[in-house]
């Protein structure tokens, strides 16, 4: 009984301070939750955890990583949506969240319910073939695909995800058809390429490099508007240069729930911005090779970019029959 009285008394004090108008003035008072809508250990998880550590320096309170990897980002989305819009919950986002909305899979509409903080970085995707493959260049691949529609196999992770979009979006732009085969993990996918099960390999730059440097994989195209400024890749043509107007890659950014008080949002944006300018981030970016294509966007531009991307996803996925009708 005594414990309950004490607890009630304590809670009452906190409530009083929390609900006061001072909410924004002394923000942040406690650690901020960084919701990562992916499982532990992937590229996006590790990015969010590293970036949080830099932001921490400027925000003055720790950012605690919370993995909510269920239901293909939907659980993370729902979790962030369910928390109060007080700036104590930040959600990491990637194209996956827009794809989920484009496919009409979640009851919570991402673009309507969240507001951007900033977009931090972009990844670039490369296509390659096994070193043992008969195809030497992109032209070989495309020539074969044109002559034999749907015969070439390209791998990726998860059906109906970003990799699926990239494979099919590229094929559309290049006027070819191939078969997309989804794998459960990056390791299975890479083994399938080296073992000869898959004809075309797609991956983001850093993972691509690890296979390429050993001479196991031959790059054929960079999905970008110009060639990459990396010595090993200077001879690899870009998709735009090859007259294939398709340059999608992954990117990572942060959002908060709509309705977060403006002053609080300002503090957050400032801290995230300072982290971006921090040499520690530049170092991290260099190691992960995410500094080669421009990714950084301020909140307003970031918001605008969502709609354009959304339309692209909607178009390709409705053609594939992956948009849920309700």
């Amino acid at each position, binding site marked *: 009984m005594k414990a309950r009285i004490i*607890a009630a008394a*304590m*809670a009452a004090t*906190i*409530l009083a301070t*929390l609900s006061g108008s001072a909410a924004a003035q002394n923000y942040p008072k*406690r650690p901020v*939750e960084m919701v990562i809508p992916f499982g532990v250990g992937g590229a996006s998880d590790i990015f969010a955890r590293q970036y949080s550590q830099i932001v921490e320096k400027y925000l003055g309170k720790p950012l*605690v*990583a*919370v993995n909510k990897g269920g239901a293909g980002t939907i659980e993370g989305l729902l979790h962030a949506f369910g928390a109060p819009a007080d700036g104590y919950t930040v959600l990491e986002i990637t194209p996956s969240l827009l794809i989920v909305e484009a496919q009409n899979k979640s009851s919570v509409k991402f673009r309507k319910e969240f507001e951007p903080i900033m977009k931090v970085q972009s990844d670039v995707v490369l296509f390659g073939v096994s070193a043992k493959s008969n195809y030497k260049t992109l032209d070989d691949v495309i020539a074969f695909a044109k002559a034999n529609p*749907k015969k070439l196999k390209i791998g990726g992770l998860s059906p109906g995800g970003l990799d699926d979009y990239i494979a099919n979006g590229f094929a559309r732009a290049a006027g070819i058809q191939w*078969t997309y085969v989804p794998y459960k993990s990056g390791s299975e996918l890479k083994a399938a390429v080296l073992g000869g099960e898959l004809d075309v390999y797609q991956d983001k730059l850093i993972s691509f490099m690890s296979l390429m440097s050993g001479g196991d994989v031959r790059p054929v195209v960079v999905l970008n508007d110009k060639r990459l400024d990396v010595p090993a890749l200077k001879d690899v043509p870009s998709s735009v240069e090859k007259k294939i107007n398709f340059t999608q890659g992954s990117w990572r950014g942060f959002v908060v729930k709509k309705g977060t008080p403006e002053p609080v949002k300002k503090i957050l944006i400032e801290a995230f911005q300072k982290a971006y300018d921090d040499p520690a981030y530049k170092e991290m970016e260099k190691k992960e090779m995410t500094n080669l294509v421009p990714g950084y966007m301020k909140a307003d531009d970031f918001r605008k970019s969502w709609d354009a991307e959304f339309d692209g996803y909607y178009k390709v996925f409705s053609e*594939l*029959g992956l948009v849920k009708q309700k």
Partner: protein
Amino acid sequence: MAIEIAFNILIGLGVLFYLAQAIQLPATDNPADVLGAGGFPIVIGIIALIGLAMITIHTIKEKRKVDIPMLNLRSIDGRMVFINVLVLAAYVGLLDVVGFVLATFAYLVAAPLSMGYRKPVVLAVFSSITTAVMTVVFGIVFYVPLPRGVEFFRDLSYLIY
């Protein structure tokens, strides 16, 4: 025997429902994917039905009696386990309402009581220590975002983890 047959029928109905769903799964857009989304489920569903039929025939022949205390609320054991299931259900239900700490503490007091444990002092010490250790280990050391509950309880939880 009757209970076991009822149980088999229950599973059988579940499998039939599963099969009905599997048949409705949309055809695939990839002609090379011969089995499609429904193929594998249909195969395993049918094997399960055949197996169930064999088991049911065997049960009818064998006429073995199975004792299930949970369904026999007249026995003390049965009541005890039944109440325990309810206590666990309440625990699970309360987790997202009052938060991890309070719900766990309440469960750790209620569950041993429901099993007939009657040493209040030991119980109080055990429940407090276990709750504290779990909260510290999972919530603080390993950063598991334990359920916080709603409103008042949510704010309360920020004091602890």
